[in-house]
């Protein structure tokens, strides 16, 4: 029984961060119809920036977000303006290929700077454990869970109650009509993409403590993010957070209960099954 709680708790904690990773991608897809296949490589970029700041100034990952978040947001805006915007409106698949190319550039740029050996970035909370009954939780996971949910709620309120949030929703629903209402659609798209990448810098710091990082791990994060976004119905906010929790739990159950490769396969199997039988994602209501 304790194993069950352990798996559930671990899955929920990590799943919340997966949900956060996916929210950025979902927002971007909703506003500009772009699916970014270099999403995961931006996560590893964020992580390696933290590593660089740690090696240079012994900065804790949680502190270095003061630098990484604005930097990554700016990078996101530049990438959108110079690389992705010229492609929007072209065939959808060209953006896929462009971001695949970008993924190669990022991954190998990191490899050239940092080398291929797995690296760790220590943090002051890294090895702290919290014991509830017979369930052992790692403090970084709890921090990640709390911050992810707080951010998700913050984003939700931002979308609902601020002018910028309303303009994002307006562009998502009907870009043409939004433009007629005086919304600068191009600006909203750039800002959303930048916001999506900026969120990744935060998520990277949350995932970093205790995780060994390698330049080539980006693709796996991209795949996980895509799984979550698709499960959540692409643009449905609640659905995406739910999808994150499901993938997180599937991963935890797979590694704890099932031996060897089948355990690692579990999230993918669940994804393919849901994809085939609920192609619009988990949530029923037509996504807004």
């Amino acid at each position, binding site marked *: 029984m304790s194993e069950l709680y352990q798996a559930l708790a671990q899955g929920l904690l990590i799943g919340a961060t997966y949900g956060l990773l996916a929210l950025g991608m979902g927002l971007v897809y909703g506003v500009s119809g772009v699916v970014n296949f270099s999403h995961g490589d931006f996560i590893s970029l964020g992580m390696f920036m933290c590593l660089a700041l740690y090696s240079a100034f012994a900065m804790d990952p949680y502190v270095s977000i003061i630098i990484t978040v604005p930097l990554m947001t700016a990078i996101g805006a530049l990438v959108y303006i110079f690389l992705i915007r*010229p492609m929007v409106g072209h065939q959808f*698949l*060209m953006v896929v290929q462009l971001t695949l*190319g970008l993924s190669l550039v990022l991954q190998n740029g990191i*490899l*050239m700077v940092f080398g291929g050996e797995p690296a760790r970035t220590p943090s002051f909370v890294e090895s702290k454990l919290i014991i509830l009954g017979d369930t052992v939780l790692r403090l970084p996971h709890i921090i990640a869970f709390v911050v992810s949910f707080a951010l998700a709620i913050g984003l939700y309120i931002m979308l609902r109650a601020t002018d910028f949030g309303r303009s994002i929703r307006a562009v998502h629903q009907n870009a043409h009509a939004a433009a007629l209402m005086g919304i600068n659609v191009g600006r909203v798209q750039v800002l959303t993409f930048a916001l999506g990448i900026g969120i990744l810098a935060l998520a990277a710091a949350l995932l970093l403590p205790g995780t060994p990082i390698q330049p080539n791990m980006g693709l796996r994060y991209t795949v996980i993010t895509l799984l979550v976004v*698709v499960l959540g119905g692409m643009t449905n906010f609640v659905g995406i957070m739910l999808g994150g929790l499901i993938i997180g739990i599937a991963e935890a159950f797979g590694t704890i209960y099932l031996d060897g490769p089948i355990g690692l396969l579990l999230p*993918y199997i669940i*994804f393919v099954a849901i*994809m085939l039988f609920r192609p619009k994602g988990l949530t029923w209501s037509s996504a807004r």
Partner: protein
Amino acid sequence: MREEFYKTLSSPIWWGTLAIAAIMPFVLSSYYVHILTLALVYVALASSWNIVGGMAGQISLAHSLFIGIGSMFSAALLLKLGINMWLGLVISAVISGILGAVIAWIDFRFQLGHLSFVLITLAFAEMGSIVVEGWDFLGGASGLLLPKDTGNFLAFQFGGGHGAFWMMLGLAAICVLVNVAILNSPLGYYLRTIRDNEKAAQAIGVNILRYKITAMVISAMLASVVGTAYVRYLTFADPYLLISPVITIEIVLFATVGGLGRAYGPALGALLLVPLGEILRGKLGSTLPGLHYFIYGIVVISVILVTPRGLLPLFERLWARWRGPAVAGKS
């Protein structure tokens, strides 16, 4: 419609190019022969992918599975069960074909859109690499080492260097020819109709399921056969190379750079980029690992931004412009 294909078959340019390519091993040093052999591997792979990705417009990221079956599985059959690699090649190709048919059927049955197809095939590819890395029969994470290539043709050995080059040249030529044949056959027209407007294709009575499966099976079997030949050339079946989704991404990028959906586009992309990458890796690989992939990435981004249809159409336009004034001047 097939005339174009027979014209290619009887074209002196085609055979001339092949003949010049075939004498390369006598001209170049073994290092450059190695680079050309690798380029030919990717010409063959990119051309086989083009049947699905270029002509039918379905960006399949599952091709690492077919390459992986062709390489890892046939190597495992030889090493673990003592099955001759020729037979292993056939078995792997059949399995790849069946798997390709299943993927195409899933695509049709569940009406996946373009994006869902990319995602599902990527999920399959990730699953494949996890399975291979965790399954000892296929070598697990450490891979499989094939016996030394002694040139015994009956055991699928070509004597290394030169022999492997000719083998790959033959395979690459076959893959490109299959592209020419399909493009000029009814199948090619159906596939392009499906790519351009699937609903309209269905409305005028194109049997979408049948042609999608046909294209995927041909593409998968070719990729599998190339995989077997590639692993024999490499001698070492490395799961991180052969069944990693990265190999598919490389192929997709070569095809995109060259020109999607064109018979010679993917070949052009691979012939330009692979030697560039390999030479860079040879010169700077120890100081800057990953530089060649970095350059691939930059090239593909630039090509997509400058000429989204690839380099082949760009070259054709330049050629036409260069010839244009000359022709006009004559008249």
